[in-house]
Each structure stands twice: as structure tokens, then as C-alpha cells.
């Protein structure tokens, strides 16, 4: 009898534990329950999907943004970063598009590596950026530089160098694409060696002479290349530039002294650049740099959640702490929200069929890449 009693006690204990733990998990994933028709995010948790491994540039950006999101979205929700790495950001973005409930409690950050495959319609892309509502967009920039001795004879001479320029890159479908297209526009003869592990290794390759023309994004350029320039070992050639509201290429606001490739082209060839390569260049600058990172929410999320999120963004960019802190992480660029952002998105991702075909053919021809297989 006594034995039976102990058994009974244990049964009850086990099941209570089960129950409690079950509740616990439910609570943790309770975000599925959806946003009740409230007027704020009070007591809610927003999952912030980052389609990269923790610690990368986009992840750092997302983690930098989370406290400001919590602060400015009405109701001060908890914002939790969730990393879904894999497939160069495509795995996570696909998951967000297809498996996350569109209840306004799931947001996503995308980056250039999700924008370009979407634009080119890679077969692994299972998301449609048109089905998301953008909340905030952040630009980035890049500078192309070379060895001082090569640039000593002037730009015209430099552009006509043959079989002498080596470029160390990672992959022709990533950020390198923009730089490679800039060589194409300027009709330079550059041998691109792709396959390096990252921008850091490619910079080391430049320093030790394995390559002699290279590009770095704004923050890396400022922290690592400007010293080389001061020592006289490197010379900046041009910034990759930004696309303005009219779709024109303008100087990078972070490097107002550096020309764009348009200016260089006009200097050397005496006419404005044109043709498919030029269109492709502008298109990729817009999708990779002018909108380097965008934070989105599902388009079919409840209207009032979207409203709350958008209002939050407006308050966020007025926060003086935010603009002071963002100097480091957002590289000092202005962020885009609201109608301005919508306009940029419209402009950046609507690629003409001819340009798309040209880029795909370019990748196929120069780098033996079949976009359909990716």
C-alpha cells in the first residue's frame, strides 16, 4: 500500500513537471498566438530574424538596432535576435517568408546578399521582397584602391594597363559583383581571382602583393586602408558611390573627395557612360549599397502592428543617442524610412529584363556561373 502511494506521488510529480515545462515552452514560443487587437506592443516579444551566423556584419547591425526598437516601438516590446544561418542568407529569409506567422511579431533583416539573388531570381530564392513591408533601410559604401606605384602615372595610363592588375575577391555574386562591374564599365583589364575567405584575407593579399587592386567597405576602409594611404602604399581610385532619388550615381557622402566612376569615365573617354554594363552597375549599386540592409515585416501583418512599427521607426531616427551611436556601426550614413524608403526599394529592386539578362550572361561568360543552379 505504501509502495503504491510513493508511486502515485511520483506520477503526480512527473506530470506536474511535464505540465509546467510544457507551459514554459508554450510561453517561449507564445509569439504564435498573434498580436491581439491592442494599441501597443506592451508585453509582447518580437522575433528579429537574422539570416546569418552570430557575429557577422548584419548580425552586429541587428543587435545594435534591438535596444532602439524596444525603446521606440509603442509598448516597449522585448526584441529578440534569432540567427538562422545558411545558404548565404537565403535559408533564413526563406524561412521567414514561408514558416513565420505574419502576425507583426516577426521581423527580418536582409542584406545585399539577399537582395541580389532575389533580383536575379536564383532558383534557391523562395521569398518575394515585394511581399514584405520595409521598415528602415541602411546604406553602406565602398572604396576601390590600388598600389601607389601603379597609379603614379595618372588615371589614363592606369586604366590602360594590361595583364598587370589582379583583384582578390570572394565570390562574383556577392558584393564583389559591383566592383567587378565597375571594372567592366571603365573597360579595365583586371584579372579577378575569386575564392578568398573574406574581405580581411583579400586585404592581406593586397598588402603582400598577391593582388594590386582591391576594395573595402566604408568602415574597413577607414580602419585599415587609410593608414596604408598615409604611408604611401595605397592610393584610393574611386568610391563605388550611391544612387540618389532620381536614379543617378552620386559621390559617396562619406568620401566627398573621391570621384565616382561616372566622373572618371567622362574624364578619360569624354562622354557619359552608357550601355548595358553601366545600367547593370547602377542597378547593383542601388541594391547592394544604397540599400545595404533593410528591416522588414510581412506585408500581410495586422495593419495596426505595421502602423506601430512604422511610427516606432520615425521616433527612432529622431533619437539623438541613436544618431550618435550609429556613427560606428552604420558607418555614418543616413537611414531611410517611410516614403523615401519605399521609393528607394521600388527603384532598386525593379530591374529591367534586359539588364537582368545581361548580368546573368556576364556571370555565365566570365565566371562560368549558371544562375539557375544556385
Amino acid at each position, binding site marked *: 500500500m505504501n509502495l503504491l502511494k510513493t508511486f502515485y506521488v511520483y506520477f503526480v510529480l512527473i506530470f506536474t513537471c511535464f505540465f509546467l515545462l510544457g507551459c514554459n515552452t508554450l510561453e517561449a514560443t507564445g509569439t504564435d498566438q498573434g498580436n491581439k487587437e491592442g494599441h501597443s506592443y506592451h508585453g509582447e516579444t518580437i522575433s528579429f530574424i537574422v539570416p546569418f551566423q552570430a557575429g557577422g556584419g548584419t548580425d552586429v547591425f541587428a*543587435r545594435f538596432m534591438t535596444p532602439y526598437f524596444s525603446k521606440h516601438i509603442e509598448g516597449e516590446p522585448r526584441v529578440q535576435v534569432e540567427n538562422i544561418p*545558411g545558404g548565404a542568407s537565403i535559408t533564413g529569409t526563406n524561412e521567414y517568408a514561408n514558416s513565420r506567422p505574419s502576425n507583426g511579431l516577426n521581423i527580418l533583416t536582409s542584406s545585399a546578399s539577399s537582395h541580389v539573388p532575389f533580383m536575379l531570381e536564383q532558383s534557391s530564392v523562395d521569398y518575394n521582397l515585394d511581399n514584405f513591408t520595409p521598415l528602415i533601410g541602411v546604406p553602406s559604401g565602398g572604396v576601390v584602391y590600388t598600389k601607389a606605384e601603379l597609379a603614379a602615372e595618372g588615371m589614363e595610363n592606369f586604366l590602360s594597363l594590361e595583364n598587370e592588375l589582379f583583384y582578390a575577391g570572394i565570390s562574383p*555574386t556577392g558584393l564583389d559583383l559591383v566592383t567587378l562591374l565597375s571594372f567592366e564599365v571603365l573597360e579595365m583589364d583586371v584579372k579577378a581571382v575569386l575564392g578568398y575567405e573574406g574581405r*580581411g584575407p583579400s586585404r*592581406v593579399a593586397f598588402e603582400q602583393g598577391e593582388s594590386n587592386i582591391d576594395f573595402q567597405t566604408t568602415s574597413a576602409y577607414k580602419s585599415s586602408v587609410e593608414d596604408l594611404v598615409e604611408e604611401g602604399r595605397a592610393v584610393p581610385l574611386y568610391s563605388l558611390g550611391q544612387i540618389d532619388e532620381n536614379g543617378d550615381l552620386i559621390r559617396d557622402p562619406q568620401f566627398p573627395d573621391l570621384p565616382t566612376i561616372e566622373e572618371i569615365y567622362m574624364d578619360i573617354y569624354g562622354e557619359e557612360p552608357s550601355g548595358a554594363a553601366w545600367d547593370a552597375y547602377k542597378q547593383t549599386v542601388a541594391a547592394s549599397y544604397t540599400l545595404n540592409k533593410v528591416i522588414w515585416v510581412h506585408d500581410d501583418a495586422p495593419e495596426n502592428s505595421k502602423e506601430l512599427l512604422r511610427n516606432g521607426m520615425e521616433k527612432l531616427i529622431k533619437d539623438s543617442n541613436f544618431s550618435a551611436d550609429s556613427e560606428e556601426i552604420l558607418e555614418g550614413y543616413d537611414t531611410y524610412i517611410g516614403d523615401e524608403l519605399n521609393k528607394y526599394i521600388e527603384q532598386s529592386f525593379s530591374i529591367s529584363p534586359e539588364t537582368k539578362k545581361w548580368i546573368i550572361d556576364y556571370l555565365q561568360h566570365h565566371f562560368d*556561373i549558371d544562375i539557375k543552379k*544556385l
Partner: protein
Amino acid sequence: MIESAVEALFIVLDPSRLIYMFLGICIGVVVGLLPGLSGTVGMSLMLPFVFGLEPYVGMALLIGMIAVIHTGDTFPSILLGIPGTSGSQATIMDGFPLSKKGEASRAMGAAFFCSMVGGVIGGIALYLTIPFARPLITSFSSPELFMLTMLGLSMAGLLAGKSPLKGIISGILGLLIGAVGSAPAVPEYRYTFDTLYLTQGVSLPVVAMAIFAFPIIITMLTDKGSVSSHAKLQSGILKGVMDALRNKFLVFRSAVIGVLIGFIPGLGGSVVDWIAYGAGQKTVKDNYFGKGDIRGVIAPESANNAKEGGSLVPTLLFGIPGSGTTAILLGGLTLMGLEAGPKMLSADLSVTLSIVWTLVFANVFGALLCMILVRPISKISLVPGEKIVPFLLILLVVGAYQSTMSWGDLIVFVIIGLLGYVMTILDWPRPPLLIGFVLALPAERYYWISIERYGWEWITNPIVIVLACVIIVLLTGGTIMKRFSKDYENTGGV
């Protein structure tokens, strides 16, 4: 430089920062101790908290953790034959047999002492190389890096055991598994069977755990009985420390190997324990490595902590992470308002020096903490297999799932685990498979870049030729030694 070093010492010893360092040490030991959880998990755990922290405080936390992971991960390697993280696989080779003999405490005493010495040497190396780091790192071109990966691969031959052919096939199998995923030269996915999971390749922690932990789990169940065949555990921490002191040159040599390999960007420090183990096997006289030789524990343990000091050089100065852990460290730096690059040696020199001190202190304290834990934790080796395995299995499953948070991790875990089990019962050596797996991507990358950039000219590079000679000596030396030992076995057997 010395002045600023002293200044940094006081910064580090500030009580408010010391607390963070101890917090980092505790997390590091726990994360190292639990199989499956590696530095990447620990780092991503702390990343949300470092945002906005003062750099010295944040660094005390992060570096405190990184420094001791390879101290804590020794426990499961020696006690259970399961690698605590992928950095302590080689410790299993002799640590686990020692544990079976009931000498776990001795092995751990030696291991922790070596970890401490190795880690301190790593910290000193970081300090000493600061002035020369730039010219040193930029002296490696792709052809040389390719030859270094080949050197690492030839270590697989040394670890092949009795049958060289089996060892080579095992290494090639590792290379093939490493080839899964995106190719370096072209964004094309290979052997992915149209799954998105495999596009980024199979992850190292999963493979390392599967290949070692899965077989051990099954064997513990089928063999019944506890790990230690002796009913009583001998206390032997001091004995282990004495062992390490007696082999001080081995400790030093292995630590230097660790620093050098950590230092070379792009090689991936994950094989450093194997390389130190192989080198130890090669250079220690009258050894019986693989059968419970304490020196087989000393070599890899000295190296894996020393590696961290070395690998911080390319991480901090060039923004080139040598491992998943340092990749996240870079993110942490940015969140604290720092940027990896030459400024770490000028404007932010004091931060860099505080990292050196933290590395040294954390290694000492971490090792002491682990030595205190030896007595309670080593009782595990007395628990019968069938009572401990289910708990281990749960830990492994949860751990394996952490590498990419996908079911693919668990499926790969089982498949590679089964492969590992079959290899175990049929006496196929597993270390070559792991080395091949880790070095597959760098080997392909640097081979491709060398050819693409230099044509076939790179073969005439003097350093390449020297490295090729070293490899040939290593390989032929290995076979000659093996033949010798075979002769010895044959004649000795009669």
C-alpha cells in the same frame, strides 16, 4: 611598450573588471565541459550583453571565456572519450586509455597544468609578436598557405595507425565530406542533394562529436561496465603536474606549434591538437602513444590553449577570424565601438594589452578552477555505462542541434556517427578523416588561388620547395618508422 603593459595590468586588475573576467572564466569552463557546446555557443550567448560595455570590461568577459574553453573541454575527452569541443580531440587518444586504467586524475592534472602553461605562452607570444605581426602575417602568400595545409594533411599519415592505406582512405573520405557545400572558386553547390542545409557544408562540431562520441556511446552500452576498470580512482593531480614538468620541453614545443598554427591566418586552428599530437609522437623517444602515454595528453593540451593567443593576432590586427569563436569576437568588438585593424596597435593599444593580460590570468585561474573540480567530476568514470549513456545522449543531441539549429545537424550526426562506429569496430583510424575534413576547404581554396593567380609558377617559390621537402621527410620517415615497428612486432612476436 613595457610601460603601457604595466598600465594595462592595472586596468585589468581593477576589481570591477576582474569580476567580469571570472564570470567569463566560469562560463568558459562550463561551455567547454559540456560536449557539443563550443566557443561559438558561449560567444553568441554573451554577445547581447557586450553591447555598449566599456571595451576593457567586455574584453575581460569575452577573452576570459575564450581562454579557458580548451581547459574545460579536457574533462569529457579524458573521462568519457568524447571531445568537449573540437579542439580537444587528440587528448582522447591517450587521455581516455589513461582514464580506463584509473589514472584519470593524473591525466587531468597534467592536462590542466599544460593548458595553463600553454595558455600563458600563447599570451606572451601575442605580446611579443605585436611589433612584428604585420610583416609576419603579410609574408604568407596563397601557395605557401597551400603547402601548409598539405603539411597538415600529411599529419594524417602519421596518425594512421598500423595500416597506412586505411589511413589515407580515411583522410580522403574526410576531404570528400569537406567538399560538400559551396565551392570556393565558384558559387556552386556540390553534393547537397538539393537541400539548403548542406549548402554551407557539414559543420565541424557535429562531425567531431559524431565521429568520436557516437561510437563511444554504443561501445559503452555493449561493453557494459564503467569507463574505469579499476574500482578506486587514484588521486594523482600532483603526479600529473610532475609528469608535465618532467616533459617541459615537450610542453614548450607543443605550445610553440600551437601559437604558430593559430597565428597563420586561414589555416583553421581546429587541427592544432592533432598536429601537436603527431609531432609529439614523432619526436618523443620510446613512446607508446595511443595506449595511455601521459605525453600524448601533454602535447595536444599544451598546444590548444596556446593557439588562442596566436589566433588573436590575425583576428585583432587584420579582422581575419581563425575560428567561429573569433569570428563572433570580431562582432563583439564592433558592438563595443572598436574596429579590428592596425589601430589596435596604436590608438587602442591599451585594449590589446589588456587582452594579453586577461589571457594570461584567465588561463591560470581557469586551470586552478578545473583542478579543484577534478575530484568531484572524475567520479563519472566509475558510473556504469548504461546508466550514464542516456544522459550523455540527451546532452549530445541538444549540443549537436546548436551548430545551425536545424534538423540537418541531427541527421548528419547520426549518419557520420554510424560511419564512425563502423570505423571503430573495423579498426579504421578516425583522426585522418577529421584532419581531411577540416583542411578540405583551405586546401581547395589555396590550390585554386595559387593556380589562378600564378599559373604553375608558384611551384618554384622557395618556401614552397622547403615545405615540400619537409612533407616528404615526414611521410617517408613515417613509413620507415612503421616498417621498423612492424619488423619489431614480427620478430618480437616470435
